[in-house]
């Protein structure tokens, strides 16, 4: 692991039953780096980023996040989860809580923040994702794009050093994708370390420092976006790019 890496995956292997979903995955992410992961479905992209905050358990290899190694040790898992925010494809907002309560819940219960302070923080985060006026609504009353922005605000409220995005725009109607991507671009410009699983190649080109292409559980190609899109090395990458860029 190099000194400046904030996330380090070394020879990570994982199986779902007999299915070898991650095969010798190696990835180093530096502080403030923005990584975009792409690849066909079933290639292990989501599984890989879910291993980084231990929503999935890896069986072999080593994952170190901000100097903390992920093992069965629950304390380590808790510390890592405080460092790492995650945004899901299905938003996963808490439907029985208002937008504001969705955001204040973790600061109040995990960080023991006073309620008033947490609410102030929530409003600040909602300003950042540009929907402060929705604070007292319930998730079911919001559009998909608004829900996803609340989900981002909820993660940011824990003040993470790293943000993981697992296909954040895949469940959205086309006209709502931009509002979510705009928030993510702002976040990237603010210096957040980000790993984003997405098929939004326009976003990847503007934001990514590095592209990671995965197929069948392996990282097939890693390159800066410029080289990745214009001059990919592997045939598999070329085929994938031709399929997603030509339609």
């Amino acid at each position, binding site marked *: 692991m190099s000194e400046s890496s904030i996330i380090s995956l070394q020879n990570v292997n994982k199986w779902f039953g007999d299915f070898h979903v991650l095969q010798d995955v190696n990835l180093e992410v530096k502080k403030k780096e923005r990584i975009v992961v792409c690849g066909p479905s079933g290639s292990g992209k989501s599984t890989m980023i879910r291993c980084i905050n231990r*929503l999935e358990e890896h069986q072999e290899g080593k994952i170190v996040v901000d100097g903390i190694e992920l093992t069965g040790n629950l304390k380590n898992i808790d510390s890592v989860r405080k460092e790492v925010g995650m945004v899901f494809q299905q938003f996963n907002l808490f439907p029985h809580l208002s937008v504001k309560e969705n955001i204040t819940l973790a600061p109040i219960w995990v960080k023991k923040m006073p309620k008033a302070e947490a609410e102030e923080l929530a409003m600040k985060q909602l300003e950042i994702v540009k929907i402060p006026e929705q604070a007292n609504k319930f998730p079911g009353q919001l559009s998909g794009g608004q829900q996803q922005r609340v989900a981002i605000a909820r993660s940011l409220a824990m003040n993470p050093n790293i943000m993981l995005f697992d296909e954040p725009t895949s469940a959205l109607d086309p006209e709502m994708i931009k509002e979510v991507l705009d928030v993510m671009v702002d976040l990237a410009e603010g210096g957040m370390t980000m790993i984003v699983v997405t098929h939004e190649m326009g976003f990847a080109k503007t934001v990514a420092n590095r592209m990671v292409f995965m197929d069948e559980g392996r990282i097939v190609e890693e390159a800066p976006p410029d080289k990745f899109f214009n001059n990919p090395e592997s045939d598999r990458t070329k085929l994938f790019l031709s399929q997603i860029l030509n339609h």
Partner: protein
Amino acid sequence: MSSENFQQSRTPPIATTGLLGWIRLNLFSSWFNSILTILVIYLLYQILVPFLNWSIFAADFTHNYLGQQIIDRTFCTRVMDPEIGGACWAIIFVRFYQFIYGFYPVEEVWRVNIVYSLLVVAVAPLLIEKFPLRKYFLYFTLIFPIIAYFLLAGGFGLAHVSTKDWGGLLVTLVLGFTGIALAFPLGIVLALGRRSNLPVISMVCTLFIEFIRGVPLITLLFFGMVMLPLFLPEGITLDGLVRCLIAVTLFQGAYMAEVIRGGLQAIPQGQYEAAQSVGLSYWQMNRKIILPQAIRITIPSIVNTSIGLFKDTTLVLIVGQLDLLGIGRAVLAAQTWMGLSIEVYVFVAVVFIIFTFSMSRYSLYLEKKLKTGINMGAD
């Protein structure tokens, strides 16, 4: 404009509003429905008229047809002259005290009355979400069982009243409410335990639930009476009513666990993942995210099993506790009131219906409220 263009006058359309309209629409919409309606009216007439006659018009309440006050069965009209007499409700009036309090000492009965009144104060804020100052009343609900225990059993200067003297509605309510109240947290713990990732905990909870569910309540009651004392350290004896309470709570807890487990299974995996990813611990996640949603969707089933338990508490009469039904049978066993079993059983049934019907209406009200409330599906 020529006169041919004017519409011919028509008969008015058949009314579909108002009482007549409703009757026409719902009861006589076709010849088949009409026959059914007439048949049902005839049957109701055949059943209701004799019943109303027996229970109200020909019935004795406190005095018989000669105007004498009824003090035992021999004064009942229907005992004196079966041809003209209806129900003899005097048995309920004369023995009302026993039905409501059992053999609780008369000079101490004010304590039971206070408990009955406080019970309303404790339960109302629990059921009504918009209850004023609900938060503070709920603290009272939490400590109510302790207050009720000392009021009923004695202590702090109040004379001791043995549970052997408790009876009737008092025992039914103590068993029903305590059983439901204790079974709820027990059920939550068992449901979470059964879904635990730790095999030992999951196995213990599963075995416990399956064992208790696989055994009739009456067996558990016998178990509490006969076998529980064998497991207790020497010198410690458990009160008979407490033993029944333990059996009833375990029984209800197992059922509650399965109901709540059903609710837990309906919560999408994403809710767990989102809760974990923001750093909530296992207990915080369950308390704040998972259980509130799971319980909300299972309220109708929770009320359903609670109604079942409330009725099942009558089984304690087999192990010698005089609940409402037990007191009824005790009253009937007395020479002075023998043979008036119909009146007693009807009375007991009506009391049970009042409680269970209220519970079922409440559950319907909640269902309606949840349906019109915030959409629970996030997307």
